[in-house]
C-alpha cells in the first residue's frame, strides 16, 4: 500500500495524480472465510481491522448490502466523547476515544480527529446534580471531565446565551479531549487498512440467509452467492432485527429514525461541541464551517431514513434560544438515519443463541463515537468466542436478568 503523505501528494502532482492506487480493492467473494462480518459501516470495518491487528485473523470478509460507510457512519453528527456515567459505558467509549487520538496515524489516513472539547450544559438544579455525579464517576473511570461554571462556559463558547428567559446556563460538564472527527474518513480509513491486510470488502452484496449446522453457524447466502464461514459477526445498525431474524432469534431492539441537519457554512464562531439536554439540542461547527445539529428520534418503528419535521423544529428552536446568532443562518441539508434502540438504550455486544454467531448492535443515537472501541471489543469477542472486559456487561442476557446499563439516569442523554 502506498503511504499517504504530503510528499506523496507532491510527487503525484507532477504526474497529474495518475499514480494513486485504489484505497480498497473490490474482490469477488471467496468460497469461505474464517470470519465473515456483515456490515461495512464503521463498527463492522473496525471489527475486521482489530481482528487482523490484535488477533492475527486476516482471512476475513466484510459484506455490505450497499456501499461501505453508507449507513449511520456517514449520517451522524460526528461527536466523540466518553463522559458517560455507568462504568461499562465509560469504559468502552473511553477506549474508543483514546483510540481516536491516534487513529489517523494507525490507519495512515487523516480522519481529522479534533479534540476540541465537548460540554453538556446544566440548566436545572437536577442537571447540576446529575453532571456532578458523572464528574465523580468519570474521575474514578479515568475519563477526564470537570464541572465548570457559567463564566468558563461563556469563555469556551462565546456565542452561547447564558441567561435565556427560560433556562439560564448554570454550568456544564466539560470533557476537554472530546470532540469530532470526519465520519466518512473513519470508514474509508478502516476499509483501506483492512483491504491492505488482505481482507475482502464486498460491497453491493446483500445477505439473504444465514446457514447453520447443529446449532453452529456455517455460512451465509448472499446476492453474490453462498459463503462459508466458521464465525459470523452481525454489525448492521438499523437492520439488526432483520439479520437476527435470519439467524433465528429476536433482539430487544426497535428501529427508529434519527434526524440531523447542517446550516450553510460560516466562518469559525464555535470551537467546541455543545449539548443542551434540558432543551434537547446539540451543535458543533464542522471544519467546512457548517453548524452541525442533531435532532430527535421518532418514537415509532421506521425504516425510511426520514424522520418527522416537528423534531427538527424542536431542536432548532432550542438551539436558536441557546445560540441566538443562528436564527439568521439557514438550514442547508437535513437527513435521517435508522438507529436501533435497545430496552436500556445501551448497546449489545454479545454471543447469540446461534453458535459462533456474534452480534454488535443497539448503539442507538451514539454509535459513531464508539467505533474504534466497539470494533476492538467485538474483535476480541469473535476471536476468543467469549467477551472480554469491555464487552462483558453488554450481553443479551442482561434484559432477562434485569441488569440494565441505563445512561439516561444522569441528566445526560445518549447522543
Amino acid at each position, binding site marked *: 500500500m502506498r503511504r499517504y503523505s504530503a510528499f506523496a501528494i507532491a510527487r503525484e502532482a507532477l504526474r497529474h495524480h*495518475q499514480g494513486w492506487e485504489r484505497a480498497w480493492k473490490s474482490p469477488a467473494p471467496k468460497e469461505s472465510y474464517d470470519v465473515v462480518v456483515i456490515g461495512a459501516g464503521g463498527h463492522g470495518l473496525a471489527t475486521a481491522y482489530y481482528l487482523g491487528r490484535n488477533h492475527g485473523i486476516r482471512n476475513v470478509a466484510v459484506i455490505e448490502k450497499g456501499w461501505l460507510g453508507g449507513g449511520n457512519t456517514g449520517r451522524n453528527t460526528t461527536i466523540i466523547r466518553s463522559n458517560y456515567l455507568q462504568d461499562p459505558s465509560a469504559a468502552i467509549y473511553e477506549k474508543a476515544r483514546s483510540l481516536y487520538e491516534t487513529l489517523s496515524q494507525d490507519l495512515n489516513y*487523516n480522519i481529522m480527529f479534533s479534540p476540541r472539547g465537548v460540554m453538556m450544559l446544566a440548566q436545572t438544579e437536577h442537571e447540576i446534580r446529575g453532571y456532578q455525579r*458523572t464528574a465523580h464517576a468519570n474521575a474514578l473511570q*479515568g475519563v477526564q471531565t470537570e464541572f465548570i461554571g457559567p463564566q468558563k462556559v461563556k469563555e469556551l463558547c462565546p456565542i452561547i446565551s447564558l441567561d435565556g428567559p427560560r433556562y439560564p446556563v448554570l454550568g456544564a460538564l466539560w470533557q476537554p479531549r472530546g470532540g469530532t472527527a470526519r465520519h466518512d474518513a473513519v470508514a474509508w480509513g478502516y476499509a483501506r487498512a483492512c483491504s491492505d491486510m488482505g481482507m475482502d470488502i464486498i460491497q453491493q452484496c446483500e445477505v439473504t440467509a444465514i446457514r447453520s449446522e447443529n446449532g453452529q453457524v456455517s455460512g451465509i447466502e448472499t446476492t453474490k452467492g453462498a459463503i462459508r464461514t466458521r464465525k459470523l459477526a452481525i454489525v448492521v445498525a438499523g437492520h439488526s432485527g432483520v439479520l437476527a431474524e435470519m439467524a433465528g432469534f429476536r433482539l430487544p431492539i426497535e428501529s427508529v429514525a434519527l434526524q440531523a441537519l447542517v446550516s450553510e457554512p*460560516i466562518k469559525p464562531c464555535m470551537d467546541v461541541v455543545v449539548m443542551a439536554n434540558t432543551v434537547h439540542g446539540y451543535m458543533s461547527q464542522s471544519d467546512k464551517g457548517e453548524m452541525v445539529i442533531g435532532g430527535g428520534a421518532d418514537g415509532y418503528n421506521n425504516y425510511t431514513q426520514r424522520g418527522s*419535521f416537528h423534531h427538527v423544529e424542536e431542536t432548532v428552536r432550542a438551539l436558536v434560544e441557546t445560540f441566538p446568532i443562528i436564527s439568521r443562518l439557514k438550514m442547508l441539508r437535513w437527513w435521517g438515519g435508522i438507529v436501533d434502540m435497545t430496552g436500556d438504550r445501551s448497546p449489545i455486544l454479545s454471543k447469540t443463541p446461534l453458535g459462533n454467531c456474534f452480534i454488535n448492535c443497539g448503539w442507538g443515537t451514539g454509535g459513531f463515537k464508539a467505533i474504534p472501541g466497539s470494533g476492538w471489543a467485538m474483535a476480541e469477542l469473535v476471536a476468543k468466542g467469549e467477551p472480554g472486559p469491555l464487552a462483558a456487561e453488554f450481553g443479551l442476557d442482561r434484559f432477562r436478568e434485569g441488569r440494565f446499563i441505563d445512561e439516561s439516569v444522569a441528566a445526560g442523554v445518549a447522543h
Partner: protein
Amino acid sequence: MSTRLKSGGRLIDRSETLKFQWNDKWLRGHPGDTLASALLANDQTLVGRSFKYHRPRGIVASGVEEPNALVGLGKGAKFEPNQRATTAELFDGLIAESQNHWPSLEFDIGAVNALVPKLFPAGFYYKTFIHPRAFWKHVFEPVIRKAAGLGKAPKDRDADRYEHFYAFCDVLVVGGGVAGLNAALQAAKEGKRVLVLEQTPHWGGRSPVDGGTVDGKPVADWINDTVEALERMDNVRMRRRCMAAGIYDHGYVIGYERLTDHAPAKQGPRHRLWRIRAGHVVTATGAIERPLSFAGNDIPGVMLASAVRDYIVDYGVSPGDRVVVVTNNDDAYRTALAVREAGLVVPAIVDARPEANGALPQAARAAGIMVKTGTGIAKVQGGKRVTGVELCAQAGEGATLETLPCDAIAMSGGWSPVVHLWSHTGGKLTWDAERAFFAPDPSRAPVGHDGAPSVSVVGAAAGDLTLPAILDGAEAPEETPLRPVWMMPEGASADKRLKMWLDYQNDVKVSDVQLAAQEGYESVEHTKRYTTLGMATDQGKLSNINGLAVLSDALGQPIPQTGTTTFRPPYTPISMGAIAGEARGEIFQPLRRTPIHSRHEAAGAHWEPVGHWRRPYCFPKAGESHRDAVNREINATRSGVGLLDASTLGKILVKGPDAGQFMDMLYTNMMSSLKPGKCRYGLMCSENGFLMDDGVVVRLDDDTFLAHTTTGGADRIHAHMEEWLQTEWWDWKVYTANVTEQWAQIGVVGPKARAVLEKLGGMDVSAETLPFMTYAEGTLGGFDARVFRISFSGELSFEIAVPASQGLAFWDALAEAGAEFGITPYGTEALHVMRAEKGFIMIGDETDGTVIPQDLGLDWAISKKKDDYIGKRAQERSHMTDPERWKLVGLETLDGSVLPDGSYAVADGTNANGQGAVQGRVTSTYYSPTLGRGIAMGLVLHGPDRMDEEIAFNTVSGGTVKAKIVNAVFYDPEGEKQNV
C-alpha cells in the same frame, strides 16, 4: 463590460432609482431588480471567492441555482450571510458585502491556493496533515477552518420575528410557471381546494423570456389571464415568494414564505413557515440549465445561456458587449438572438453538435450570427473576468483553432428537470438517454398514507421542456435534439481537466471526480463526499448531473447504473428562525405558574425550573445568600411555622367499583384496605420494576381515591393510569381525572401550624378530630378547604387544598393569620433539606430509574399479601433480588462537612477495565441547619449491615472524604413531632 441597456427589462421600473451599498460603495438600481441584476448593471462581474482555492467568482445564473454570488446582507441584528444575490430583491438602502476573501475581494491572499490546484486534489486532506499528531488540532485545522466557511457569522440576536401557519388543501401545486398554473386551473375547475406556491415574486416561470404563443397570443397574455382567473376562484389560494422547501410523508409539505426580505419597512414576521397537509401534490418545479465543462469555465463572465437571456429580457442588463454562446442544444440560440436584439455583438455561436439546422439555429444564421458546429471551447482567456475564448474541435484534444475576443460567454449543456421534491419521499427517477436527464418515473411515484401515489409532476419538471409539450394550443419553434457533452473537448488533456469546474463553489473539477473513481470511491455517495461535489450551498443544482456523467465515464458504466445521490429537503436553504417559528423568548416553552406565582415573584423568589413549572427555590431577603435564606426558612419552620406552595403536586381522582383493585395494581402497597378519610404513603413502580413515583393516597369515599403524585409526575402518572385502564384492564370499572390544577395546595408546617389554622378559624383541626395521616373537608377562614394531615418535613403539618381561583387569597389569609407566629414562606431547597433530615426519599434524588423500592429500605411499603402489582414480576428477576444491590443508608462526614454531590464510595483496587472500584454513591447531600452539620443519604453495598463503619467518598480532584454509615433518619427518629 456589463451594463444597463438603454431600454428593455420587463420586470424593472426605470422611472424609479434605488440606492444600495456594495462593499462600502454606493450603487444604483431599479425596483424589480435582483441584487445580481443591479450588480451586473454596475459592471460588478466579480462577486465572491470560491471555497477552497479562493478563485474569483462571478454571477453564473439568474435564480436559486446560483453557486457563486453569495453575499452578506444587512447589518447588525439584521445581518445574514450566504444570501444569493440572484434571488435577493433590491430595495432602497440595501447593504451587501462580498464573502470569503481577505483582505479584499479584488486582492485575496487565500488565492495562493489557486496557484497550485495540482497540490490540492480531491481527498487531499485525508492524505496529508497526518503527522505530527498534535498538529492537526493546533495548526492545520485552524488554518483550514479559517480559509473555509464562506460568510461571516452574525453577531447579534435576530431582530425579526417568525411564525408558522397550518394550511390544508386537496391539491398543492408547487411552481407558478405555465405548467403549474395550468395544473392549478384544471384542479380548481374540478372544485378542488387548490394552493399554488411560487418561489419567486413573479408568475409564469421562464416562458415570458423564452417566448412562444398560446392560441396565437403571446404566452405572457395567457399567464396573466390564467392568474386572474385563478385569483377569482374561492377554492384557490396563490402565494408568491413562497417556496415548497420539502415534501414529507403523508402529504405534509413545508412552505417557506419570505414576507419582508424585499420590503424591510413592512410590518409583521420576516418569514412564515407553512405546514401544509395536501391531499395530492403536483410539482411543477421546472428545469435548470447545465453548465458545460471546458477549461476556465469558472472565470467571471462565463454564465448560463438562460441567465444571460434573463438579465437582458427581464432586467435590461447586458452581461457583456461581446457574448460568445457555447451550446449542445437549440435552446441556447434564443440567447444569441436576445443578445443580438439588445444591440450587442455575438462573435459566434459555438455548437458542439456536428450540425445545427433547427428552427432556432436557422433564425440565428438569418440574423447574421456565425454558427460554428462541431466546435468546442479549448480555453477561456482571462483572470478576474473573461477577455477571450480559444476554440477547438469538439472531437479533438483541444488544439486551439482560433481565438475570439469577448467579455462574456453564455453556455448551455442542456436542461435538467428539478426532481428534488418528487424524490423527497421516495419518488424514483429514470434516465432519459435521448435528452440526457433524469426525469420522474410516474410508475414509481411516492405514496401517501393510503398507499396511493401522493405526488405527480408536470411541465419541465416532468421532462416536457417546450411550451407546446405543456399546453394545448401553444406554439414555439421546433427544437432539434441536443447532443450530450460532458467534457469539452472530448479528448481534453489532464491539464485542461484540471481547470474544468463542475462545482464552482466547492472547487470540484473534472479531474477530481476522475481521481475519486480511480481510487475506488465508486459509489456516487463516495465521490460526492470524497470530492465534496454538490455539497455546497447550492446542493449541486448545477453540478450533480455533470459530475455524475464524468464519474460514470470514468467507471466505464452507463449513467443510470451510477445512480444519483439522495435528494433531501430543503430545496434551497431556509432560515433557522423560520423553523423555530414563534417559539422564542417568553414563549420559547410553556411556563407553568401556580395560582400563587405572582406572590412569590413579588417576594423576590429565586426560581427553580421543575419540568415546565417554576417553583421558588428560596426567598432570599435583601443581602441574603441563597444558602442563608434556605437555613433561615428551615429554622423558622422547625421552630415556628413555615408556608409552602405545594400546588404543583399531582392530584388524580380514581373512582369506580374497581378503583381499589386498580390502586392495588398501581401501587406496591395495599391500597384497597385504606379506610375512607385516611391517608397512606404509596410507591409506584414501572412494569420494569423501577420506582417511578411516590405520594400520599387519600381515600375520599368507598368508591373514590385521590392519588397525590410528584410535581413532575402528575401528567405522566395520569397517562400511566389511563394506559393500563384503556389497553389492559378495559373491563374494569374505573374512571380517572387529573384535577391537579383545580386545587391550590399549601403546606402549613411547623409546631405552630395548628395555632395558625385555629386563628384563621373554621373546622376543627385538633389532633383528636384530625389525627396524623387523616383528611377532612370543611372551611378555614371562610375558604372551602380540604385538609390533609401529612408531613414531608417531620413537623406537625397540614396540607390544605382550596380551589385554585382562591389560592392567592388563601395564601394571603394564612400569611396574615401567621404573622404573629412569624410564619415564613419556604422554597424547594428547604423542603429538600427537611425531608433529608427525616430520611424521606426524593424521587429523582434517591431514585434515578435504576432503583427499586427494596434498595431504599421501603419493603414496609411493599405488600406481601398481593399476588401482583405493576413491577412485581420484574422485581423477581435475578439482578433485582441480588443481595449485592446497594442499599440506602445515612451518611455523616467525620468533620461535619457536606459530602460532595454525586460522590462515589470508593472500594479497593480496580475493576476489569481498570476503573476505580466503587461500593456505593451519595444520592442526597445537604448542610442541615437543624443539626448544624452536613448530612447525606446514599446507596451502599450491604449498607444497612455496616452501621457506624467509615467509608471513603471520592472528590473530583482525586481526593476522598471519610463518612460514617448511619441511620438515614437524622431528625426525630421516633416521629413524635409530626404526630401531634
